[in-house]
């Protein structure tokens, strides 16, 4: 396989962005052309990533489609590759980027050209995160995404956009700089930043704790875990719909991916040691943020808090370090990617029509927008993890995994599912049912065709993976097996050394 397909997937959006940047001509033509270019490049990228999935060999656990090039002489290589875990995230990213470009074209009114450039650049960085097999390269992509996201929130955001954009940027940057120190330290300890080599090397135990904490500080902010989550509701609320969609569906998943790939893979001893900490923070996140979500008047804020709770499940699943738990958390991440994207799009639909996100402004929408009510219901049920939706598969597997490790955590986490039902259903009731109080609601029009297509694709995937998660599971299977096995081997190795 000589064609550098991963590089192509990473850089096609960037090329699209450069293309849009250099488009000249009349204002109207520029807008039209940049829309076409954006759709075209992200569509090509999506199809390429699907092709990648089909030609991916599910029976081996090693990294595939590896590309290695000299980058910084004798120090860092430009090294890409995917395994069963990252390939799913790549497809999620290309899919969500495509959707958010459609949604941006529908709802962004000003500076559409710049918006599309920002999204395409962001897509490049996001895919790069999931492909890179070198720590420095990973860091580069991981941080680079801050720039376009900062601009998306700041330029197209709501009233308090400046505050939210700054908070988002500085929080994540502060979290990440410790990771940079850790990455450089790893280089000096082991002599390499190549992930495939590092996974086989055994980093000495005494270094692992601090290194783990440094990586944790970055991922915990990005995830976000309680108590580092405060930037998320602000960022979500102020970001434009397409921005929220990408933020919830992909950016948060980078942290989960980082936990699986790096925290577990490189620092097994420390991961084992800090598992109680992660469990405690996650359980607090699940219960506390669910309660906070119950009290929200702003729809986006409610969904943002529910995201924190869902990510709590993910971290629990990851650190249960069982096959079921890990598979569950990856499926949970993907299903949250689909469902939260859909929910933010649903809020965006209402916001486009009435220019408010307050729950109290709505009520009785079902009478006016029946199609919308139906679609929102599916996603509401998906978010609370009803069997038959992809949300259920993830949460169920996570709980199965955690029960093997720690029953108390599992029981407490299960409470989260009940709470999720409470806040999601009450949101649904207050917005959709009841009498029409606000007269403006009567003026609203139901979904446009374009919106319906976007939602149908999401509904289809949510239900499809809910009933038949096998395509995901079979892709993950070998890689996760390998990961858990390696983890145990590594842990035992260090235990024996200690004795």
């Amino acid at each position: 396989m000589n064609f550098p397909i991963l590089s192509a997937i990473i850089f096609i959006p960037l090329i699209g962005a450069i293309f849009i940047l250099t488009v000249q001509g009349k204002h109207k033509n520029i807008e039209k052309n940049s829309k076409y270019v954006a759709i075209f490049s992200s569509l090509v990228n999506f199809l390429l990533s699907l092709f990648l999935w089909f030609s991916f060999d599910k029976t081996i656990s090693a990294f595939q489609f590896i590309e290695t090039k000299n980058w910084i002489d004798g120090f860092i290589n430009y090294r890409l590759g995917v395994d069963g875990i990252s390939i799913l995230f790549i497809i999620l990213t290309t899919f969500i980027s495509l959707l958010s470009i459609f949604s941006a074209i529908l709802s962004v009114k000003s500076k559409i050209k710049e918006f599309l450039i920002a999204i395409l650049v962001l897509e490049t960085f996001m895919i790069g995160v999931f492909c890179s097999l070198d720590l420095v390269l990973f860091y580069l992509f991981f941080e680079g995404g801050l720039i376009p996201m900062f601009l998306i929130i700041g330029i197209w955001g709501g009233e308090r956009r400046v505050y939210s954009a700054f908070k988002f940027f500085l929080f994540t940057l502060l979290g990440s700089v410790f990771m940079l120190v850790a990455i450089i330290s790893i280089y000096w300890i082991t002599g390499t930043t190549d992930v495939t080599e590092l996974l086989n090397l055994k980093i000495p135990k005494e270094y692992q704790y601090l290194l783990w904490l440094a990586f944790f500080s970055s991922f915990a902010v990005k995830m976000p875990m309680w108590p580092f989550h405060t930037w998320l509701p602000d960022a979500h609320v102020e970001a434009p719909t397409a921005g929220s969609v990408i933020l919830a569906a992909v950016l948060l998943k980078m942290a989960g991916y980082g936990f699986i790939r790096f925290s577990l893979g490189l620092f097994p001893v420390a991961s084992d040691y800090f598992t109680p900490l992660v469990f405690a923070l996650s359980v607090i996140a699940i219960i506390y943020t669910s309660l906070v979500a119950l009290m929200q008047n702003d729809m986006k804020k409610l969904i943002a808090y529910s995201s924190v709770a869902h990510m709590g499940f993910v971290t629990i699943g990851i650190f249960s370090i069982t096959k079921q738990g890990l598979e569950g958390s990856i499926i949970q991440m993907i299903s949250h990617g689909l469902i939260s994207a859909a929910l933010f799009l649903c809020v965006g639909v209402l916001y486009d029509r009435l220019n408010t996100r307050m729950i109290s402004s709505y009520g009785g929408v079902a009478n006016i927008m029946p199609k919308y009510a139906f679609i929102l219901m599916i996603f509401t049920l998906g978010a609370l993890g009803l069997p038959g939706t992809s949300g259920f598969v993830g949460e169920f597997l996570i709980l199965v995994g955690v029960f093997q490790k720690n029953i108390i955590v599992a029981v407490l986490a299960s409470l989260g599912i009940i709470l999720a039902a409470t806040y999601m259903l009450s949101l649904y009731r207050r917005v959709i049912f009841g009498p029409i109080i606000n007269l403006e609601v009567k003026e609203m029009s139901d979904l446009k065709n374009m919106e319906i297509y976007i939602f149908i694709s999401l509904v289809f995937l949510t239900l499809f993976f809910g009933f038949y998660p096998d395509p995901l599971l079979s892709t993950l299977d070998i890689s996760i097996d390998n990961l858990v096995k390696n983890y145990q081997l590594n842990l035992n190795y260090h235990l024996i050394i200690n004795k």
Partner: protein
Amino acid sequence: MQTALYILPEIFLSLSLMTLLLVGVFVDKSYKLINLLVILTMFFTIALIINQPDQTVKIFNNSYIIDNLSIYMKILTLLFCSFILIISQDYIKINNINKIEYPIIILASTLGMILMISSYDLIIFYLGLELNSLCLYILASFKKYDERSTEAGLKYFVLSALASGILLYGCSLIYGFTGSTNFEIISSSLDKSNMGGVFGIVFIMVGLAFKISAVPFHMWTPDVYEGSPTSVTSFFALIPKIAALCVFIRFMYVPFINAINHWQTIIVFLSIASMILGAVAAIGQSNIKRLMAYSSIGHMGYALAGIATGTNSGVQSSIIYLSIYLVMSLGAFGCIFMFKRENIFYEDINELSGMSKNHPKLALSFLIILFSLAGIPPLAGFFAKFYIFVSVIETKMYALAIIGLITTVLSAFYYLRIIKVIYFDKPKKSFDEIYDWGLKITLAISTIFILIFFISPSSLTNLILKIIVY
């Protein structure tokens, strides 16, 4: 004769300096001509320097050295000096400081800096330093009818003369305790036990720290940067730093290398203090020149961190840092030269409000430069910091690395604030159209360099890896 060949660039510079002075005196209104000739002289000198033999040579009784470090630094000095002259033409014309002395003095100060860079003896070093400093005093007060400019010149003169005095005192101490002014002899006779020599080292470091405006010897920087004409500010922000940093490296790694335990702590302190002050003090600034002053203080802090490591790779990382810093600052000042409405140049950040609407290209390149100054990947500024931290962590100075990274986050705040003004705020009246192609092209080059540096960082670093200091 061989010796004369080695200092051909210096001889050429001095001769053309005098010739140009004569031309300037005898030809009427010859600013434009002189300016052009100075730029050409610089490029020609660069060509001469590049053609020098690729080996380390010491001439004039080992008092003048030509090695990879000095060649690289001289090229940087001349190159960026000519870029500064190119981008500031418009500004100089509008502000009516287009006198023939201006380019000539800049050329003279460049000559001083080149002497400093190559000096291998305290006396030569001091000669170069003074030639350079005297020119800088005049430059700072070049807009002589402007109160702020004269104030800046006077302030700089008083403080810098004090610093030079302290430095000279340090030199005399060193001479007294080692019996020589030659760097190599000093190096062999200066060690830990020589307390008098250590005093000398400290005094010399104070003088040098003043020149690169490291905290706590930075007080002049914001005032002088703000008061001087912007064309001079851009010169101050870039060119003297090259020579000062080079001399810093030379001093620490040749004559003072045996006293590394003594100076290492001092440099770590200078570095940390500069990084913190550069990050914190800039937050409240609304004048963009003052902000650039604090930002340059912070950046010098990072460059010093590389020197503090005491390793070859540390020095190389700090030279990489310097090189990238120069490109970024050049770009930033290129943008500042474009902020003018009806022939008045604006320095207040709030005047940039909503610039992205009327000037999308200018706004975009300023955005890229600012993110790069903040050190966000994948821009060049990130790599500059990355190399520094790699070498700092190699020597296990974790505290320095962590403080450096936290100040990166703090300083990101004020760069973001400018971006916020440019992109998020309501637009004001648009700026004048720029017809100066030199300025536009320079800005484009630096922006593109910053943007595509990540594709092949090695092409720059491999050049610098040739520089071995000890």
